[in-house]
């Protein structure tokens, strides 16, 4: 068990490295830079741009710095650590080394603020949204799936199928706008513009919008696993013991059916995280997702890298937790 955890944690290192590398590459492929202005506004002049680039290290080569390495070698440096350090004295290398120390760098656009400070300030908003969405997805999704499977081809089954189809096929940015139009502007049930994101109430509508896709996914998975478990021989054994229908469902069917459902929580979380980026933007929630989108439009390199790495880390940890809980739920895996 311990070695399993250690192995999984060690695997996170290359995962995070490559996530960083790929997003760095894509970010630099996108046209424009962090200090460009709108076309119809006055651009930053050449001298200032040079200063800014030097201030943020953008004058260094992007990935590796063989020139600095050669210069150090000529200067007589032979210490392998120092030589290696000069070789990776590049934009990407410096960023990753600083990130390793917990320093995600200064934001290019939010003057005077570090990325980690910004994230620290914004993550509670994102957490609230994600918690509401996840709770909704699990608390509604699992019972709906169970009912749909136990009463196969009944009204409940068709209702769950309807919601699942809507949830999967309607993208959250359309659904979010629909919710704002119908419940915000016409029915006036929800405030479409609130400045107070420190209470829970304004999160409910965006939480449901964000959670719907995951909920439909969980519903369908639960339905199919319950249907499969229902047919197993050991369920027949349980019924032949004279157990009540409720005891058979709670003790025998659910315990077995939820194992595959738990394993899908990894992908579900992934859906929530990527969905949150869109939902936060639509509902103007000042969470990490909204900052992420803003950072992409502004080419705020350190902010993009920082949020991406945080998201990746979150998913890696979530997947480790899911895998551990899998072993906890299924004794056949625990002993291996």
């Amino acid at each position, binding site marked *: 068990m311990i070695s399993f955890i250690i192995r999984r944690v060690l695997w996170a290192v290359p995962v995070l490295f490559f996530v960083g590398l790929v997003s760095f590459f894509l970010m630099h492929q996108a046209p424009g830079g962090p200090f460009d202005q709108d076309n119809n506004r006055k651009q930053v002049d050449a001298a200032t741009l040079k200063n800014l680039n030097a201030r943020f290290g953008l004058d260094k080569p992007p990935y590796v710095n063989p020139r600095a390495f050669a210069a150090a070698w000529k200067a007589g440096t032979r210490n392998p650590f120092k030589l290696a350090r000069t070789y990776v004295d590049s934009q990407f290398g410096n960023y990753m080394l600083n990130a390793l120390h917990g320093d995600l760098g200064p934001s290019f656009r939010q003057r005077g603020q570090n990325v980690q400070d910004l994230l620290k300030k914004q993550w509670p908003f994102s957490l609230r949204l994600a918690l509401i969405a996840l709770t909704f997805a699990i608390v509604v999704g699992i019972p709906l799936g169970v009912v749909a499977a136990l009463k196969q081809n009944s009204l409940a089954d068709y209702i769950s199928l309807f919601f699942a189809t809507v949830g999967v096929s309607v993208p959250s940015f359309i659904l979010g706008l629909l919710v704002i139009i119908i419940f915000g502007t016409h029915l006036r049930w929800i405030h479409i513009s609130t400045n107070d994101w420190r209470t829970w109430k304004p999160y409910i509508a965006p939480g449901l919008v964000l959670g719907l896709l995951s909920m439909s996914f969980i519903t369908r998975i639960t339905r199919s696993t319950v249907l499969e478990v229902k047919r197993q021989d050991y369920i027949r054994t349980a019924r032949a013991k004279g157990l009540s229908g409720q005891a058979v469902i709670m003790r025998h069917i659910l315990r077995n059916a939820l194992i595959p459902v738990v394993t899908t929580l990894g992908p579900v979380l992934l859906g929530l995280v990527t969905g949150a980026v869109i939902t936060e933007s639509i509902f103007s929630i000042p969470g990490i997702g909204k900052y992420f989108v803003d950072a992409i439009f502004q080419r705020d390199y350190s902010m993009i890298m920082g949020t991406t790495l945080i998201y990746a880390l979150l998913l890696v940890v979530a997947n480790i937790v899911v895998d551990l809980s899998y072993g906890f739920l*299924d004794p056949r895996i625990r002993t291996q």
Partner: protein
Amino acid sequence: MAPLLEVKNLSTHFFTQDGLVKAVDNVSFYVEKGETLGIVGESGSGKSVTSMSIMRLIPNPPGKIASGEILFDGEDLLKYSEDEMRHIRGKEIAMVFQDPMTSLNPVLTIGRQLTETLELHMKLTGKEARNRAGELLALVGIPSPHKRLDDYPHQFSGGMRQRVMIAMGLSCNPQLLIADEPTTALDVTIQAQILELMKKLQDELGMAVIIITHDLGVVARMADRVNVMYAGRIIEDGPTNQIFHDPRMPYTIGLLQSIPRLDEARGQRLSPIRGLPPDLINLPQVCPFSPRCDYVQDACYQQVPPLRPVEPHQRAACLFDVHAPWVSGNGTSPQAQTAHQLPATERA
């Protein structure tokens, strides 16, 4: 005295996309207290559906007990409510299923699966139930039983799991134990052990047993009486010795002939029953065995032969007085004997 279990004209039907399947068709039999009844037949002959009907565990839909009575201790189980039926299942009638690998819940400990019934039917609590569960494991011969209560099914071998299933079946001292192919999934040495165990426990506890199998060896060893099923009907019944010695239905004869023998000459071919069992959808009103029967006559295509007494205690569903080739006696061939039985119009 009334028998412990009496099944009268039981029919269980399944409504499938292809049509109505009469999985069990007008079946009647009985089990006395303390006796062992064997039900034999090939796959799809309705043996398991019969036992599931007795437990009222036929999945509905698509299945349904269409008609009949199941008298247990004189009470018709088919008239019981689902709640009343739950007090019968596991308590009065218990079942042991075919595949011990899949019949135990993989995520619950053996102890939990045993105590569950004890708590439900015997009203034992916590520690008492656990102790009793340990005793039951000891009874079925599992070494260090109390320690193994916390183990999961995958930590047991196949034979050990079947012992657990038997312990589970016996836990509430049922009056009737239905064992549905209890040894089919086990290898031969383990089969013998499990059968020995069942026989020993039956003698000790005095319950009646219905043993469902396609293995005639198991029947010969265990059963006092035997029902032979074919295409959802009982086509022969009687005391085991009598049926093995002088089967009177061509199907039973064929079954007994197809058993490989150790004392047979080398190179001798097995004599299987030719053909396949009939499709149970839209079964025509003829003898269901007629397409495969060596003794078939025109009359076989006129009606479904009723189960008729052929000897004291023995009944067979054949229109004619056939005997197996190994039975010497009157020595008449089926053809010779049946010619005069055919109605005059048929001969013309």
